[in-house]
């Protein structure tokens, strides 16, 4: 019957409508909810904060880096080392919200993830305050303290990591701030408005010109193109497309190999290599090393950029020596050093090693993961030899440690201020050791130092490498 057929049409329409509700709910749950729920207008966030004793954050040896204690009705978040972890752990404030690990792992710290709320049913029914999960960092607290001391009073960042696993052992950004709620709320205005940008986590979100440290990446491309045995004639000055390029102090090194050019950080040789490699190769190698790509990490990381559409010869020359429009984060430079150390494999950086429940059960572990293959094993070994030469007999001598082979590369990066001629270059150093079986990789930057990477940054790297290797003999 005609009418019954039409009733079936209606039923079909209704089914589609009902299914669209179910589909939308599922989509919302899977893809939209995270952002929605984190909105600061969601009063549940604050409510959970009040009902749950926030989990503790530990370093790799169970040293407490952040914990919550009940003070009468309210709980207080205590950071025993104040400023030291302000750019890693961040803050947890009722007024200003949360940042970094406190924000990213909030659900875990308040124990509100999936099944655990079911297991805690007893406590929830009776209204007893429960405890959130604990977060374990890969950070080594003594090394972090050492790193902070080495850079204290300066502006910049230090990243120390294990090249084979990607674990971050120490990460310091300077200047910093006190993340404890009372101090944070008192100083908020001046902290936010300060020209020193203490809230900026320079190690992960500061964007710097890599300078000569980028010559390691260029060298990898040059080795691949078979330039390692070639002899370059270095006259100290070279003109490319009408633009004059000089070595530091215009020193002429004469006839030198690629390895020697890296060791002395010859601008004339590397700008020529940049032009010779050409646009395609330069873009290709940058992308293989992770430029213009997101780095997955436990706290927000800015994306390093290689922002060229079309490159002129002067652009290629500039990129060849790590200048131009290139911008990197210190974390990314540490990862680049690590990938050279790790036979050409760049590991995903790890900051949180595991999460445990209040009863000690492991809820989550962060396993080492390969991120990119940046170069072949052979290339990585050749490049390592060249970087060893740079430390033993080149610009990086200040990173030398007796009895340990250190590979490294200095950088003295021109920036927007040096263009005006006030001589405030960034001082860089990246490196790793021991060369035979690398256990630690380092990136150090002292921003606007006005000095060279060899003088300013290399000694800091040396101290950190020494510290870590002496501990892990």
């Amino acid at each position, binding site marked *: 019957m005609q009418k019954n057929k039409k009733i079936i049409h209606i039923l079909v329409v209704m089914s589609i409508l009902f299914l669209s*509700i179910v589909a939308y*709910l599922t989509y919302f749950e899977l893809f939209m909810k995270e952002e929605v729920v984190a909105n600061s207008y969601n009063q549940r966030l604050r409510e959970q904060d009040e009902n749950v004793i926030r989990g503790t954050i530990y370093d790799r040896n169970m040293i407490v880096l952040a914990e919550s204690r009940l003070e009468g009705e309210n709980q207080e978040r205590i950071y025993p080392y104040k400023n030291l972890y302000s750019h890693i752990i961040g803050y947890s404030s009722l007024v200003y919200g949360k940042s970094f690990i406190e924000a990213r792992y909030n659900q875990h710290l308040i124990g509100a993830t999936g099944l655990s709320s079911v297991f805690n049913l007893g406590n929830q029914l009776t209204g007893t305050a429960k405890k959130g999960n604990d977060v374990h960092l890969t950070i080594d607290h003594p090394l972090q303290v050492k790193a902070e001391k080495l850079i204290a009073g300066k502006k910049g960042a230090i990243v120390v990591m294990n090249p084979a696993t990607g674990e971050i052992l120490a990460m310091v950004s300077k200047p910093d701030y006190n993340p404890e709620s009372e101090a944070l709320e008192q100083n908020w205005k001046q902290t936010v408005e300060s020209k020193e940008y203490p809230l900026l986590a320079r190690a992960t979100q500061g964007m710097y010109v890599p300078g000569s440290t980028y010559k390691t990446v260029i060298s990898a491309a040059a080795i691949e193109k078979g330039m390692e045995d070639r002899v370059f004639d270095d006259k100290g000055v070279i003109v490319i497309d009408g633009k004059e390029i000089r070595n530091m102090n215009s020193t002429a090194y004469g006839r030198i190999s690629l390895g020697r050019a890296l060791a002395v950080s010859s601008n004339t040789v590397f700008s020529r290599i940049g032009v010779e490699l050409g646009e395609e190769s330069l873009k290709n190698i940058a992308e293989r090393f992770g430029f213009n790509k997101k780095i997955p990490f436990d706290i927000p990381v800015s994306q390093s950029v290689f922002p060229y559409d079309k490159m002129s010869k002067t652009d290629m020359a500039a990129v060849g020596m790590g200048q131009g429009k290139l911008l990197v984060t210190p974390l990314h430079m540490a990862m680049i050093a690590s990938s050279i150390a790790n036979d050409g494999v760049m590991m995903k950086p790890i900051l949180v090693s595991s999460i445990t429940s209040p009863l000690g059960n492991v809820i989550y572990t962060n396993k080492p993961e390969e991120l990119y293959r940046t170069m072949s094993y052979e290339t990585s070994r050749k490049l390592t030899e060249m970087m060893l030469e740079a430390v033993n007999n080149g610009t990086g001598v200040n990173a030398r440690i007796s009895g340990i082979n250190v590979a490294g590369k200095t950088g003295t990066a021109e920036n927007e201020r040096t263009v005006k001629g006030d001589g405030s270059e960034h001082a860089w150093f990246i490196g790793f050791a021991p060369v035979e079986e690398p256990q630690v990789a380092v990136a150090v930057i002292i921003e606007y130092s006005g000095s060279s990477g060899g003088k300013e940054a290399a000694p800091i790297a040396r101290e950190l490498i020494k510290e870590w290797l002496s501990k892990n003999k």
Partner: protein
Amino acid sequence: MGKILNYHRPIRMILLINIIAFTLLYLYKESYDYHTILFGLGVIGLINTAYFLLKWGSCGDEYLFLIVAMLVSIGIIMIYRLDKSLGIKQITWFVIGIVLFFLSYFVYQKFNFWDRLIYVYMGCSFILFLLTLLLGKNIQGATNWIVVKGQSIQPSEIIKIFFVFFIASYYKHPEKLKIPPIPVNGKKINIGSDIVLSAAAYMYMGFLVLQREWGSAVLFFIVYFTLLYVFENGKKILLINGILAVLGGIGGFLFVHHIKVRVDVWLNPWKDIAGTGYQITQSLFAIGSGGFFGRGIGLGSPKYIPEVQTDFIFSAICEEMGIFGGTAVVFLFFLLVYRGCKIAMEVENAFNKAVALGITIMFGFQTFIIIGGVIKLIPMTGITLPFVSYGGSSLTTSFIALGILQAISKKAYEVEEELTVAKE
């Protein structure tokens, strides 16, 4: 006990969910209020008795009541958890609802003149509309309540049933709406009865718009349009009504500030979280916090959503019973619509067919409009979720409608039985 835990029979599932939920509510925050247990037993007893009566009297489709009993249970549990006193009131309304359910079942069966009262339905509707406009109290921006002896009543709920009956009577006796040709300048102009029907239907919607009940206006249009689709043979009238709806929608968006605001809020509620977007964003927070499995009955915070016990009850269900709980509610309504369509298809009499279908799609589309609204799938319009939302007017009239559907199902199945007997 073993029999209750054996959940193969649907009635036991309903008992089980009530037992579990009321026990949880009893234990919740160590309240140990024995009234909770009593009310739980009351609800269980009520559902069981009604189900027994239905089976015993072999009153047609047995699933209709089961589906609705599950929905009402979920609603009562949620409302009781939100506010005990409202929960108790809702249980009272449930008792009254069941009485009205049986009453309307018997009365509808008893008499046969329902299809001949087209003018009565229209008259009652418009009188109620006028009363609302004159005596109406403005609650939450809509003038759709009248207060009688301290009790607010929402006349548009009962008008829904009149509306369905009105259209159904028309399809049984279309000639009743025929007006004699009007003489204009010596010529006589014939106005078809379908035009009169349309005009009357739009008058219903006009009144609803005057009361700023946008959701109900849309619902009435959909019910009207669906019945047109099923019962009219011509395509022209559908097309004209469709165009009118589109024009009305665009006009509303362009010229009616309230509608524009609602559409804007739907497109981006985050722009004004503290103001116009407050309700819907609070609703989304609740649904998001629940996840797939929910935070548990009594463990969520649906209290932040304004009007949570009425329009936004679905968000509270999603927060505490999870998206799976919400999906279950949607599927229960789907089952209800399915049973309703089945009944409408099996019954022969055009009037009964139209009434059964009208009631069914009224339930179905009302569900879609309100759930779609609170989850931000479509713009939000305030109407209740049938059988689940708190509210006497909504619950009792829904049960009256269900009683009528039940009566029609009895007729449909009787015919079927006779046919099988005849075949044998």
